[in-house]
């Protein structure tokens, strides 16, 4: 392929991407209107250290939902293994309560909303019969799939952070749905550390790889996966858990955190200008190979300075990030 051909191809590809993006926006609500609904399920722990670990993870996820994603109390359900209610718990994590919770949330969601579900515990079974151990009868992956069927107008993020969770991906995979599992297969059943890093990352700036102030599911997943790898490498152990994400493109688009939108038209205009500059930077990056280093650096610095000025102006006008 000649350079000219390559550039043409990039241009055509960029147009297709823009169309694709526009279609995606058409089905999604504006960020400011999009709401997030959360269901956290802690299964049976079996031992005090697991109980502490699961509870801490659920608390991290809950804190992130409330403090960073702005999830309202009515859209937040936390089910734990204990029958007594607590500050954290909305009820016991029985199969019936889980089903009820999905039902309750289905009545609250609007098209374009995000449903975030996270399971914590010990996994068992395989294929459609994969489970997370619960008080009483366990719910199977197939049952979770049926409960999620009512959310086909929402973006669903389903995280099974239990051991042996890998088979959930194949069973739950569907359009507009991101499935994250702590392990690659149902056979990876050794104690896993993915949960603590994934739950921790939900409220962590460090996981925000592109530093745009919002955490995409993929950023959280990638952060957790990297940290898990480090745990095994630094302790010279063979890695016995390999997390999966079902749809990395969608996982990149689904993000949590405050949006930059504002009711002030002056700020809205500044934000639009800043977004245009960000696009210019992205566009410039695609041309890097065709430019001299000096020309590229000069143009990059010009755009970045303009971008920085724009952010400063937004801040000065009372706008958020």
């Amino acid at each position, binding site marked *: 392929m000649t350079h000219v051909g390559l550039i043409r191809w990039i241009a055509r590809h960029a147009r297709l991407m823009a169309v694709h993006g526009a279609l995606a926006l058409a089905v999604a609500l504006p960020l400011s209107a999009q709401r997030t609904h959360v269901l956290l399920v802690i299964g049976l722990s079996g031992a005090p250290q697991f109980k502490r670990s699961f509870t801490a993870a659920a608390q991290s996820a809950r804190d992130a939902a409330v403090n960073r994603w702005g999830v309202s109390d009515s859209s937040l359900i936390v089910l734990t293994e204990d029958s007594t209610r607590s500050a954290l718990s909305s009820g016991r994590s029985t199969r019936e309560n889980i089903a009820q919770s999905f039902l309750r949330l289905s009545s609250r969601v609007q098209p374009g909303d995000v449903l975030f579900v996270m399971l914590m515990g010990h996994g068992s079974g395989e294929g459609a019969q994969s489970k997370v151990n619960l008080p009483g009868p366990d719910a199977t992956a197939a049952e979770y799939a049926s409960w999620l069927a009512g959310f086909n107008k929402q973006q669903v993020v389903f995280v099974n952070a239990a051991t042996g969770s890998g088979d959930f991906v194949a069973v739950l995979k569907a359009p507009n749905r991101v499935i994250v599992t702590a392990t690659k297969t149902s056979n990876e059943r050794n104690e896993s550390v993915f949960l603590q890093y994934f739950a921790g990352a939900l409220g962590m*700036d460090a996981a925000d790889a*592109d*530093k745009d102030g919002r955490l995409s599911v993929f950023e959280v997943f990638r952060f957790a996966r990297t940290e898990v790898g480090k745990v095994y490498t*630094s302790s010279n152990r063979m890695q016995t858990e390999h997390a999966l994400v079902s749809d990395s493109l969608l996982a990149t688009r689904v993000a949590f955190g405050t949006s930059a939108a504002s009711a002030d038209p002056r700020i809205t205009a500044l934000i639009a200008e800043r977004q245009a500059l960000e696009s210019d930077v992205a566009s410039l990056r695609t041309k890097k190979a065709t430019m001299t280093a000096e020309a590229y650096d000069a143009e990059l610095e010009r*755009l970045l300075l303009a971008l920085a000025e724009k952010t400063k102006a937004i801040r000065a006008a009372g706008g958020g990030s």
Partner: protein
Amino acid sequence: MRRSALRRCALRRSAWLLSAVSVLTPMAACGQDRAVAQPPAATIQRVAGPDRWASEIAAAEASARRGDRRAATQRAARITAAYEKGGARNSDEYLSAGRAYVLLGIGNAQAVRSALAAFDRATAADSNNFDAQRRAGELFLEKYNAPDARVSFEGILRRSPTDAKALLALARVEEFEGKGDPMATARLSIASDPRYAEALAFVAKMQRDAEAYDSARVYAQRAIDADSTSTAGWSVLGSMAFLNGDSATFRKALAAVTALQPAPAEFYTDLAEASVRQRRYTEAVTLAQRATGYDSLYVPAYGVLGTNQLRTGQMDAGRAALERAFVLDPFNLWHKNTLDLLDKMKTFRTIDRGRFRVVAPPEEAELLALYIVPLLEQAYDALAVRYGYKPPTPIRLEFYRYHADFSVRTVGLAGLGALGVSFGSLLAMDTPNGREKGQFNWGSTAWHELTHAFTLGASDHRVPRWLSEGLSVLEERRVGRGWGADATVSYVLAMANGKLRPISQLSDGFLRPRFPEETQFSYYQASLFCEMVEVSRGAAALPAMLKAYRDGIDTPGVFQKVLGKTPAQIDAEFEAYTQRKFAQAISAVRGTSPNDSSGGKFVATMREAAAKMGSDRDAARRLYEQARAIFPEYGGDDGPAWYLAQIAESVGDTTLALAMVEQVTSRNETAWEANLFEANLREKRGDKAGAIRALDRLNWIWPYDPTVHTRLAVLAASQGDHARAVLERRAIIAMGPTDVLDARYELARALRDAGDIAAARRELLQVLEEAPSFEKAQALLLELRGK
């Protein structure tokens, strides 16, 4: 080399034990396949009579000894052709056929198998044919299968316990395996046949390798007197003459050998190996090259050549030589392991900085280079002044993430206990995470190994191992930071119970340890000797000793010339010095009898204190104080000072806690917890400079803790040490943080603080290129625009 015997043989033997299974594999196959290329036994017509091939095989072997391989293989091929066509008539003919196959065995694994099968048949035909059994054993050993070799020789000795040849063969197995006492077994052989030249030469060689040159010379001469055609005897004599610069004796030995072997490849290979034992790797390469020039099929020559080319940094040439060796002898695990490692090393990253070349796994290279290069630059300058010598640069420092790889790099096999090794201008060591955190200090190890490069060079590689190790440990201690060995309870006990060797015999402490800890003790003991010399004769005495060795003077001569005493007088002086130095410690740990290793009053008091810690902390404190009073030098992180520090801290007495923990951190180079404790305490007390020092010590124990680097960066910045802050920020990035953009933003800030605006800006542009929305970075970019 640090904390392990340098003697190649010992290393090879100990490593062998760990790798025996893998070594055995090819020979196990060999044993199962012995019938290959043999005439079917059932078809052989057994005819009594003389061995038809006796003179032919004798002539073939004589040709091989002379180095005339062509004639040897032609004759051998004639024998094996006849054997394969018509079979053998009796045990002796099987034996001759086996000997012929041995001569055809270079680069021919099939011939090796056929040789073993023929020896087996010779033994089956006549169970009294010990020669066949012995040759089978020798062939096993030649192909690195010591267990089967041992079975062969022990079989002979059960029926003929004084068989001199079998005894010598067993001694060779013991030497190879590192089991038993090969010297004693060889002496039994000599006792059985006092004029057995091979056994005499074997003992001579062992003595030479143990640096007992006088004794080696006597045995070598006895071998030659018994048999003037003993090339092994001439070889030992010639190699010692070569190493000591005695050109007349060397020429005489060379002439004698050349008369027997016009192409003396074996002689030059032995010279090369002897040079390696004196750590004269460059000369070993030259000598091995001469050997390969004489005989292009002589495997040991290629092995020595390749191994030592790799040790002198000639990586491509070394690989080529080992590949040649491996083609000729595919049974050689040492060569195979090394070649496999060289393949693995293709992924390593090389960083050239200053006078050093760091070669390390890619994920660690930058982090390690950031710290080790400035440290070694500092060491290089200090040592160059002290020893008046500058090793050639760049000095190559290789790091291995897996200890087995380091071990293969050093001795060709896994299982070496050392942490680092020095081949002069090539150093190799474990990466800090090649072992558990707290097991070693990578800074002091590198300093130790670099010191060898100076002491070896300053003495023209003639310094004995024990002194070189002593100097390296002493140099570690000079750095401070708690580096360098210190007195342990077990060391003081060994001293008190007379288990340590006198200085004049300290070489044996490294080369022939009598108990597991002796090598370790010998390092410390050697360093104490160096300390004593410096205290009593001044700083110039140690370099003067190296110079004397360089001039070819032996150890007694060096003692006399530089220290003004005989070895016996030095032994007495050292004994008095250490008894004085450790008088209090000895009385603290000495038991009620010479064999009492309980640790005396010190250990008893520590035990009592530990028992009280849970129930009566005050009583425990008093007991720890008593223990400390009776052995104040003890710096272990299980000692009284460490516990007293923790008790003091728990009651808020940070001054006492600091004073106590310093007793540990100033004496113990791997005390992670104690250094962390000290860093926290100092930071709490506002002693930022002190906290930095403690954190720095932590970094040399384990550089992979990002919180240590972050704390160092923050503290250094607050102290105005912006260069250090930049270093720490770079270290964090080198560790591959998950949030790399934030780490690079922090580096940009540190660079700004250090006044390097251009670098800060470059860093920021790269960060923002990846994350244009990164608000903190945007703000900093705006700020820098104005500068």
